[in-house]
Structures are given as structure tokens and as C-alpha cells.
């Protein structure tokens, strides 16, 4: 092939798809429970996903270069040694203009996502509530209005989401989860797939591949929120009875309606605290799972939930949790960047979890050390750590 041929191919590609970035928000599945989005509301999400794409691809690498060329050398000149840990790294970064600008833009983009999603959901709050109610089937949803919301949830508006996962302002309110379902696309830069369930898809595929003989009859997802990552698992094991648990009523209402809208009928949702699931007998489940849940927990809650997971898991069953990798072994800069959300995106337990030796907590909760499971994956969404991908599946067989 000569040069003119390759130029022609390049031109052809240019015309067809010389594009690397988020897909159009409209390629997401607008199921029956989904909020209606106008042209401009959709374009707001498109713009914000592009902002995050830019921040991850162009600005975050500049922060790293500034660290190498300016921040770390300045620290060493002042202290006669390199930064010893992420706290020193973060404090040094706070004085660096490139880090300041990246951080300010990251925070603003998250705030703009919340505003855009809330606007669309709030303007149709009553319609959404009515549509959700009409989609929920008999027995698919059990709410417990008397359930106390644990302080580790009530005290925090996770990732700058006013009202977090549990806030509601009128009976049947689903504006929080509707905003979440339409807006998460922005944070994961459109990489979570048309149903924002990339993590659940990866998890379901991994379980089937790794444990071909595991045929779970009963599955429970702790901190299920809107059920995004549970539905692929429910679909992978259609014969199983599948339960999603959360403390928030709005997310569960939306989850039930969304499951109906997507035609998944072997799943139901229960409002309960995952540390106290006394309604289920010991060994009731052969798959106990969670995704992006452990990092929202206080330490006592984490231990209590792991102990409850151990109690609920049947002999031969699997407990598996999707999380981000622990900080151990990472340099101060990498840790500081990954820890950004803890300080600036309302994730107060993020640091605690990633400093923990989870294997220790698992064994303290009753799991056997030789049955622990630990696998690292590429995170399909690349949502955290400034776009630093990778996720871990951690848990244990029993």
C-alpha cells in the first residue's frame, strides 16, 4: 500500500468516525421508568461527559507532569526528602495551580451534573412517581418506613448528591434515583454501557467463568441502590431468587420499576439495613454480593455487614464485593489522586476503606483465610481516581 492509499483510508476514517470520546447520552436505554429528557437536558449531560473526558485525558496527566517537574522537587528542596505519604503529597499539590484548576473543574463538573439531573427529575417529580408506582409489581418491593437511616448514610450527601440515596420529599418520590440514573453517564464518561451496568456485567461474567459449577439459588445484593449492577447477575442466573437490599426507599422504588421496565422478573427489593437482616435464616444465600458499597460504610458498619454476610452465606457459597484497589503499595502521588473523592467529593469513608487490609476484616468476620478471593480487573467505567482504572473483586468462598 502506498502513501496515497493510507491517506485515503485515514480520510475515510475521518469522515466515518475520527472520534474518541463518550457516546451520545441518547444511546443509553430510556426504559419505562427513566425520566423524560428534553433535547437541551440531554445535551447538558453530553457536554458534562465531554468535560470529564477532557479532565481525565488532558488535565489529570498535566497534574502528574506538574507533580514530577515542580511539586515533588519543591517538596524535596524544602524538606530534604520526598513526600512520605499521600497526606504530604495532597498538601503539596494544593499549592500547585494545575492541581487547583483540575480540582476546581472536577468539583464544578460534579456540581453541574447534580444540578442538570435534579432539574430534569424535579420538574417531572409527580409524573415520575406515578409511573414508578405503576411499574412496581405485587411483592416486588418491601419498604420499611420505620427503618432508621444509619448515620454513615444520613450525615453525607454522597458524591455531592443532595439527599443522597435515601432523601425523599413526598410519598413515592424517585427524583434522587432518576437523577442518578440519567446523570451517572457523566461521571463514568459514557463508559458504563447503555444501562450503566458495566460493573455488574463484568461481575456476572466473571462469576460464571470462574465458578462454572456455582448455580446460586438465592442471591442477595447489599447496598443495591437502583439495582444497576444486580440486574446483570439476576439475568445471568435466571433460575435464582434475587434480592436487592438498601436503606433508601427512593432507590428501591426506582430499582423495582426499572427491573420491570427491563423485563427482569426474578428480582425483588427490600428496604433493610445490611448489618441486620434477621428476616433471613443462616446460610440463606449462596451468593452475597455488593458493588461500590463497602467504601460508603463506617468501620463498625463494615465489620457488622461482613459478619452478617458470613452468617447469610451458605456452605460452598460465594461472597464477592466490587471495590477499588487498596492503597498499599502505591506511591504518595497515586494515592493522593485516588483519594481526591474522599476529600472533595463527599466520600468520607473512601480513605478508611482503601487503607484497610480487607482480608483481615474478612477473616475477622469468620471467613477462612485460604478461601479468600482477590481479583483485579479493568474498571469498565474508569470512574474514580481521576480516571485511573482498575477495580477489584474481593470476597471469599465458604
Amino acid at each position: 500500500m502506498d502513501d496515497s492509499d493510507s491517506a485515503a483510508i485515514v480520510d475515510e476514517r475521518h469522515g466515518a468516525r475520527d472520534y474518541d470520546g463518550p457516546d451520545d447520552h441518547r444511546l443509553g436505554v430510556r426504559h419505562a421508568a427513566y425520566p423524560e429528557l428534553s433535547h437541551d437536558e440531554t445535551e447538558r449531560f453530553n457536554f458534562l461527559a465531554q468535560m470529564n473526558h477532557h479532565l481525565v485525558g488532558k488535565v489529570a496527566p498535566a497534574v502528574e507532569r506538574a507533580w514530577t517537574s515542580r511539586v515533588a522537587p519543591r517538596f524535596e528542596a524544602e524538606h530534604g526528602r520526598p513526600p512520605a505519604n499521600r497526606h504530604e503529597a495532597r498538601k503539596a499539590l494544593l499549592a500547585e495551580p494545575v492541581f487547583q484548576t483540575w480540582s476546581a473543574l472536577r468539583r464544578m463538573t460534579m456540581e453541574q451534573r447534580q444540578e442538570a439531573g435534579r432539574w430534569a427529575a424535579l420538574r417531572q417529580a409527580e409524573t415520575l412517581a406515578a409511573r414508578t408506582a405503576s411499574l412496581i409489581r405485587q411483592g416486588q418491593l418491601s419498604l420499611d418506613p420505620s427503618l432508621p437511616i444509619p448515620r454513615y448514610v444520613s450525615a453525607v450527601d454522597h458524591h455531592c448528591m443532595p439527599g443522597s440515596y435515601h432523601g425523599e420529599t413526598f410519598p413515592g418520590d424517585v427524583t434522587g434515583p432518576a437523577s442518578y440514573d440519567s446523570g451517572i453517564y457523566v461521571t463514568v464518561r459514557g463508559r458504563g454501557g447503555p444501562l450503566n451496568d458495566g460493573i455488574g456485567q463484568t461481575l456476572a461474567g466473571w462469576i460464571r467463568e470462574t465458578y462454572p459449577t456455582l448455580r446460586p439459588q438465592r442471591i442477595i445484593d447489599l447496598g443495591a441502590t437502583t439495582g444497576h449492577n444486580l440486574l446483570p447477575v439476576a439475568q445471568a442466573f435466571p433460575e435464582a431468587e434475587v434480592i436487592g437490599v438498601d436503606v433508601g426507599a427512593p432507590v428501591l422504588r426506582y430499582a423495582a420499576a426499572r427491573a420491570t421496565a427491563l423485563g427482569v422478573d426474578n428480582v425483588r427489593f427490600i428496604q433493610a439495613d445490611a448489618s441486620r437482616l434477621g428476616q433471613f435464616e443462616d446460610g440463606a444465600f449462596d451468593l452475597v454480593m455488593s458493588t461500590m458499597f463497602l467504601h460508603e460504610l463506617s468501620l463498625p458498619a463494615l465489620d457488622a455487614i461482613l459478619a452478617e454476610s458470613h452468617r447469610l452465606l451458605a456452605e460452598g457459597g460465594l461472597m464477592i464485593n466490587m471495590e477499588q484497589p487498596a492503597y498499599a503499595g502505591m506511591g504518595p502521588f497515586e494515592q493522593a489522586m485516588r483519594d481526591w473523592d474522599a476529600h472533595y467529593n463527599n466520600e468520607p469513608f473512601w480513605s478508611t476503606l482503601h487503607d484497610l487490609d480487607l482480608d483481615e476484616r474478612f477473616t475477622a468476620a469468620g471467613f477462612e483465610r485460604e478461601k479468600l478471593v482477590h481479583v483485579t480487573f479493568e474498571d469498565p467505567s474508569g470512574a474514580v481516581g481521576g480516571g485511573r482504572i482498575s477495580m477489584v473483586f474481593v470476597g471469599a468462598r465458604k
Partner: protein
Amino acid sequence: MSRTSALRRSADKPAGKRPYFLDPEAERIFAITMAVAQELAVARARVDTLERLLEAKGVVAREEIETFAPSTEAHAERAAWSQEYINRILRIVQQEAQAAEIRDEPPAA
């Protein structure tokens, strides 16, 4: 009812103290600018949608937009709008310039 509550609540502050990475005055203006940038992108997307729909329906070919040359009269109307627009958004520049001419008025900063 919903629209009113959306106006009241869509921009609610999340719990916790907001971190500032820059001088707060600069960050405030920066945040407003980024929201305006977002709305510009949204308006641009809407124009693009209109152009594509008009072209698909055979009303206007986009080539006609690219090669459009306003008449002298149309140019004068458009240019007058630009002048008025600039005058309006640079109001503070004019006002500070006027203040500078007043002997006893101290500068803003």
C-alpha cells in the same frame, strides 16, 4: 408545581463544606463561567440539530449556511445587534471608565 420546586431545589448545596481550590472570588466566577460554557454548548447543539433537521427535510442545505452572505442591509442589522450586545455585556467597563473620570471617586480595588 414541579417546575417551581425544580427552580427552588435543583441547585441545592450538598451537605458539607464546599472545598475551594482557588481564591474564592476567582472560583466563583470560574464556576459561573463553566455553567455558561455548558449552556453555550447546549445552544450550539440545538442549532446543529436544527440545521440537520432542516437539511434532512430539504428546507436548507448546510452548504447554504456556510456560504451565506448577508445583504448590506442584513449585515447592518446583524452588526447593530453585535454592538448593542457588546455594549450591554461590557457595562462594567464603561462604568469603571466613567468613574475614573470623577476626580473624588476612589478606584474599586
